[in-house]
């Protein structure tokens, strides 16, 4: 099992957002998170990535297993595509960026600076970063934003390859990626918007 979440409660700032989230993701499996805007998909993913400490519950995963991709691309506009990829390759221990470049068709863009590219091109580069990390569990927050149909297909193919190699993915998205072994988890039943349970100043009234 690559990732197992038991009875997880997540908070953002002073507010509890989700409670009682449980799921497991096996190698080769993808989990699609669904839920209306503001339900707490981003908070859940940030908690999985270890950025926000959970309020309650457990996340069982190798701490070095998770690769996180946020709304923001995390690119440096003054660096070229190649330099951006090599930087992340260095951060995650040297890996060959060639498969990442091929998967997202970045070869014609390699010497372009990230600042000169369109939003969709930046997104492709930021997704290519995931392949460079070499980590098995991808936690992706709306990965297909500003991608055209052709590149959504490329992204789906990259995820499929990743799953076939024993990886897994947790993806918050609203579109159908057509992944072979994907379960869908609607987080609406777990939404528990209230003041966080560990806030000693929240007193029950009347």
């Amino acid at each position, binding site marked *: 099992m690559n990732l197992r979440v038991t009875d997880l409660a997540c908070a953002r700032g*002073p507010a509890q957002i989700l409670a009682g989230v449980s799921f497991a993701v096996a190698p080769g499996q993808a989990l699609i998170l669904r839920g209306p805007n503001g339900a707490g998909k981003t908070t859940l993913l940030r908690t999985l990535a270890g950025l926000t400490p959970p309020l309650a519950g457990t996340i069982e995963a190798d701490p070095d297993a998770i690769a996180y991709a946020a709304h923001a691309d995390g690119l440096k506009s003054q660096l070229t595509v190649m330099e951006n990829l090599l930087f992340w390759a260095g951060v995650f221990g040297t890996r060959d960026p060639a498969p990442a470049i091929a998967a997202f068709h970045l070869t014609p863009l390699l010497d372009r600076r990230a600042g000169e590219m369109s939003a969709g091109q930046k997104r492709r580069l930021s997704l290519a970063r995931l392949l460079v990390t070499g980590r098995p569990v991808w936690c992706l927050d709306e990965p297909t934003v500003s991608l055209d149909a052709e590149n959504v297909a490329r992204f789906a193919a990259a995820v499929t390859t990743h799953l076939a190699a024993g990886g897994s993915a947790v993806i918050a998205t609203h579109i159908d990626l057509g992944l072979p072994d994907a379960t869908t988890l609607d987080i609406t039943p777990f939404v528990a918007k209230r003041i966080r349970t560990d806030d000693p100043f929240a007193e029950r009234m009347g």
Partner: protein
Amino acid sequence: MASFWEYANPRKFMATSAFLLPWTAGIAGLCLVTGLVWGFFFTPDDFRQGSTVKIIYVHVPSAIMAVNAWLMMLVASLIWVIRRHHVSALAAKAAAPVGMVFTVIALATGALWGQPMWGTWWEWDPRLTSFLILFLFYLGYMALWEAIDNPDSAADLTAVLCLVGSVFAIISRYALVFWNQGLHQGATLSLDREQNIANVFWYPLVITLAGFGFLFLALVLYRTQTEIRARRLKALIAQERMA
């Protein structure tokens, strides 16, 4: 006996402080009136400094409390960092403006005393300068509390600032002694007090010192209560909004 840490619970703290507050405030008032009246009107003039020496009854206690307030904030910050007691963080927040006002009083009375004694309102003497720097530390600490929206994050960041600031404050203190040897007389209160100050001056000084101590305690209790109420209000509003 109940554990000391029970008072970290806001409800328990509110109850206990509501009981303690009138007493501390009362003792503070009593000590301040006794000590100041005794000191101002019933002590002889100093043979060298004349009646200006009487400002000592405000200057010395406020200077001592200015430093002790920072120490209290340091301890409260450590308790917050180690044991995550919210009341502790709020007490540190509550103490900062009080400590800052004591620092300003110490600086202002020092200037008023220095003018007739040294012929100058301000001198870049190590003691004076370190109080000025202490004032800047208080300002920075309070500004950081104000700047951060999430109260728990603000508590964490100000606690880190308080710890690091304390280290640098101590280094600054010694750097200033190294920098300029100074005009300021030696410490007024020390273990070998007979050498510095006669008994007639000493007794009222101890009483005003106790008065300033209790005044600090009362103000911190009062302000911590206010901070707790503000947090409860914030929680209520958040609950309303999310319901």
